[in-house]
């Protein structure tokens, strides 16, 4: 590849100036003229029938303009793959926090007061919260009695289990011969692992502002990360024709997977249509916890057969994801979480069953890592236990069992762009794995540990991009890849700049408006750089093709001999033979005397489609099941207080292979952010429940790490391993989700190194550490 000018450079973020000056547009900051404020009355019960809804008193309250219930909406459900979720509860509520009645009023206060005047009569049904109880043949409650009548996506059809009425999807992988594998094994080790429910806690709560246009069209501004996905769900939920709905997403104050579903949009739109006035529906922080999606809590059983030398010969995994009341993106998580057990290790005989189980809890959805966090937690913890058992160094055990480039993994895919080994070695070195440990002070004991991670990216999937050339040499990129902090606008602009050989600041990005910007599946699954990046490259090529056709005549050289730089078309190798873009397609400018007879606008368009192979339903085998895998490793050094169980992270090092780093500093941002969120998941974050009601729906009691809990810059190191992917733009893959996954296992290993306890439940709260220490003492 020839030398790159913009790609691979850490240009400053496209959006930083707007963001440090407080001028960046966020929907939470939007207040439209004549706007109404929406509030929602939510179910106080985890599971109940709705007997009667009486809104008459609320309607009488001055300032109340519109009230919306399921009766006002089409009786249709929506969903990510399994169409099971109503916009508002119809005749039954399935979790505490499910929307039941929405009010639009002149002020937030009035709307709030109106809620207290609404009378809803319920008949409580038994609630089910534990997924292992819920997935029994005779559970205390069947949460979706009509499950089998729901429609679903034909792309990945669900598999139901006849004897498990609350299982909404069951994914299977079968590879080799498990029985034979276990027979070969010298040792069989089985363990149970769990992870807790987490909330994304985007700093910007979910919000939508909807305006019903007089012609019946709908405009919705929303803080979402899948602009077209949201549009689709809205159309499904409200039975609207897709051209009638315009979705606009300015900047998103954090996504992490939590803004892919219509949590606010449909209700805002419903109220706007009813009142004919703009409606703002903004979640309070409490609502984010009770009613937005969450990371599935999980119970995972891993049973491994290993040789004495540590070689894995058989692995059986059972993943139980607590999906909450509706399947949402959890429908896909059930399948894709499985890949956490696929992407890192070589296992000749493999069996996996993954279950999505309905319970009466908040909805399990997409969350940075999409199931891989849970499964990799279990796999990595299990690897450490095998190492303990065989008395092999955990790093050595991993080295022995890693996949390698070109090898077939348990899904039947060929391994590509596999940087795990390099990442592992880098981390081993940088964390000082083999160095003597720091001194312990009083009850504080030090330890180090390492965890690996892999994260697949979704396929099939597609992205489109449009390039418009400006007569002054600027390149305009139109994309619907949502900017939620991951830097998509910057990275995509870098790709366009590289393609046209212009400076980075000569690229303008137009993003996030379904009337203007072309289809994109969204900022999910660490897919944007790879997929939208590819689309941008193709669109640039399309624009250049047209440009060169025009220029060929003027420069008297064949199109294939042309190249662009700094807003001009050059004949390759002849710096003196060039023409400015503006001279090729300037639109009519009377004053300048340039009047073009044709081709006043130059638009390049392209669609990138990432294909997926057919997949066997019973064995999960296919030749291209995912777009790509990200691999990496994290090393952690911790201090554990033997008296109280408190764990402090002293140092964290992560190395990840993201293919080509289009913008290395932005990749570092993702790694560091992943470490931060990973530490939260590992040590602090857990939604607590009582009878289905969240006990800690606020930042006081739900503990997100602050700058004091994450080590400072001198103790956090990120390393980029460029294992280029043959299909990626400039070899790039993705990075967003990977790092969070390996942090928990690394800390777990470090705790063991410090005080000799193995924990299997995340988060590793101080009470859990304390209990394990007590057990060890006893």
């Amino acid at each position, binding site marked *: 590849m020839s030398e790159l000018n913009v790609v691979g450079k850490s240009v400053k973020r496209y959006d930083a100036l707007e963001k440090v000056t407080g001028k960046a547009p966020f929907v939470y900051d939007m207040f439209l*003229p*004549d706007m109404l404020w929406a509030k929602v009355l939510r179910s106080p019960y985890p599971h109940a029938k709705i007997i009667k809804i009486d809104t008459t008193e609320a309607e009488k309250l*001055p*300032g109340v303009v519109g009230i919306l219930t399921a009766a006002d909406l089409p009786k249709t459900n929506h969903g990510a793959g399994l169409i099971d979720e109503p916009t508002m509860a119809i005749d039954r509520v399935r979790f505490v926090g499910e929307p039941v009645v929405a009010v639009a009023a002149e002020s937030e206060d009035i709307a709030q007061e109106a809620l207290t005047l609404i009378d809803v009569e319920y008949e409580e049904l038994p609630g089910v919260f534990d997924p292992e109880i819920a997935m029994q043949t005779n559970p205390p409650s069947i949460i979706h009695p009509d499950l089998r009548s729901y429609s679903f996506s034909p792309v990945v059809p669900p598999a139901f289990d006849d004897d498990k009425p609350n299982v909404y999807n069951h994914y299977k992988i079968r590879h080799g011969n498990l029985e034979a594998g276990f027979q070969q094994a010298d040792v069989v080790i089985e363990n149970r692992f769990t992870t807790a429910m987490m909330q994304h806690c985007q700093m910007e709560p979910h919000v939508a502002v909807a305006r*019903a246009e*007089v012609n*019946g069209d709908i405009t919705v501004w929303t803080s979402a990360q899948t602009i077209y996905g949201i549009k689709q769900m809205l159309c499904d939920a409200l039975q609207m024709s897709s051209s009638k709905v315009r979705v606009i997403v300015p900047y998103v104050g954090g996504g992490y997977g939590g803004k892919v579903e219509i949590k606010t949009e449909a209700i805002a739109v419903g109220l706007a*249509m*009813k009142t*004919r006035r703009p409606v703002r529906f903004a979640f309070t922080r409490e609502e984010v916890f009770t009613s937005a999606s969450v990371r599935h809590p999980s119970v995972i059983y891993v049973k491994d057969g290993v040789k004495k030398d540590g070689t894995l010969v058989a692995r059986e995994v059972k993943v139980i994801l607590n999906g909450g009341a509706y399947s949402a993106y959890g429908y896909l998580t059930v399948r894709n979480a499985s890949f956490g057990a696929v992407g890192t290790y070589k296992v000749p005989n493999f069996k996996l069953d993954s279950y999505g189980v309905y319970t009466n809890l908040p909805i399990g959805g997409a969350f940075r890592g999409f199931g891989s966090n849970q499964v990799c937690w279990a796999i990595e913890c299990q690897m450490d236990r095998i190492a303990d058992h065989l008395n092999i160094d955990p790093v050595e055990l991993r080295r022995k069992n890693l996949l390698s480039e070109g090898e077939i993994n348990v899904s039947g895919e060929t391994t590509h762009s596999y940087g795990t080994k390099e990442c592992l070695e880098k981390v081993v070195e940088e964390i000082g794995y083999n160095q003597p440990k720091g001194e312990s002070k009083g009850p504080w004991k030090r330890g180090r540990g390492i965890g690996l991670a892999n994260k697949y990216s979704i396929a099939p999937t597609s992205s489109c991009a449009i390039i418009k050339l400006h007569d002054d040499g600027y390149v305009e990129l139109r994309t619907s890849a949502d900017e939620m902090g991951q830097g998509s606008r910057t990275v995509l602009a870098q790709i366009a700049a590289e393609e046209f050989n212009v400076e980075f600041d000569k690229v303008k990005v137009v993003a996030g408006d379904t009337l203007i910007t072309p289809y994109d599946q969204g900022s999910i699954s660490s897919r944007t750089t790879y997929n939208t990046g590819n689309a941008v490259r193709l669109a640039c090529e399309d624009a250049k093709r047209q440009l060169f056709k025009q220029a060929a005549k003027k420069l008297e050289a064949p199109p294939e001999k042309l190249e662009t730089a700094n807003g001009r078309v050059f004949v390759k190798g002849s710096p003196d033979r060039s023409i400015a873009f503006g001279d090729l397609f300037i639109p009519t400018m009377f004053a300048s005397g340039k009047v073009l007879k044709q081709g006043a606008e130059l638009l390049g368009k392209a669609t990138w489609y990432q294909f997926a192979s057919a997949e066997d339903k019973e064995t999960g085998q296919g030749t291209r099941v995912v777009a790509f895998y990200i691999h990496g490793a994290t090393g952690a050094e911790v201090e554990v207080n033997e008296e109280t169980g408190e764990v402090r992270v002293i140092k964290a090092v992560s190395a990840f292979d993201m293919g080509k780093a289009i913008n290395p500093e932005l990749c570092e941002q993702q790694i560091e952010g992943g470490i931060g969120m990973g530490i939260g998941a590992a040590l602090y974050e857990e939604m607590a429940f009582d009878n289905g009601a969240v006990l800690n729906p606020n930042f006081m009691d739900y503990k997100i790490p602050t700058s004091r809990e994450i080590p400072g810059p001198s103790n956090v190191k990120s390393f980029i391993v460029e294992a280029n992917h043959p299909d990626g733009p400039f070899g790039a893959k993705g990075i967003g989700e990977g790092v969070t996954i390996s942090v928990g296992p690394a800390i777990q290993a470090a705790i063991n190194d410090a005080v000799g306890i193995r924990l299997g439940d995340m988060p590793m709260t101080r009470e859990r550490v304390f209990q394990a220490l007590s057990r060890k003492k006893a």
Partner: protein
Amino acid sequence: MEAVSSKIVNILVNGNNYEVTVASNDTLLTVLRDKLGLTGTKFGCGNGECGACTVLIDGEAVNSCLVLALNCEGKEIQTIEGLASSNGDLHPIQQAFVDNFAIQCGFCTPGIIMSTKSLLEKNQNPTEYEIREAVNGNICRCTGYENIVKAVSAAAETLRGK
């Protein structure tokens, strides 16, 4: 007798009761637009010359830019936003303006429609002269008024038929 520089004023706009803090120097127009966000009513000249800010106070068309908001306590005000019914159906006057191509840039339209409404409430069968006289206080720069007059007649006819 207290001299006040601001006061909370209750006004009924399009059937909704608003309690707004109004300064002595606020006109009804600024209150409607800036405080209530009802920007359908337009600012054209600020001097009562163009009629773009026409609203109905207790049924009478007035230039809202000339009315002190403090004097509107208890008044019933209708603006263009209140014309279409809550299910989105256009008022016959609005429909007539659409049907008769009486709209071009659209900036004077709300004011003219409000003047029309005031006229047709009192006079169900206006002559062309009466129509011209009724919209005399509204300046339109695009249409040359012809289609507006037609639209008003058509609206009158529809309303009479009702």
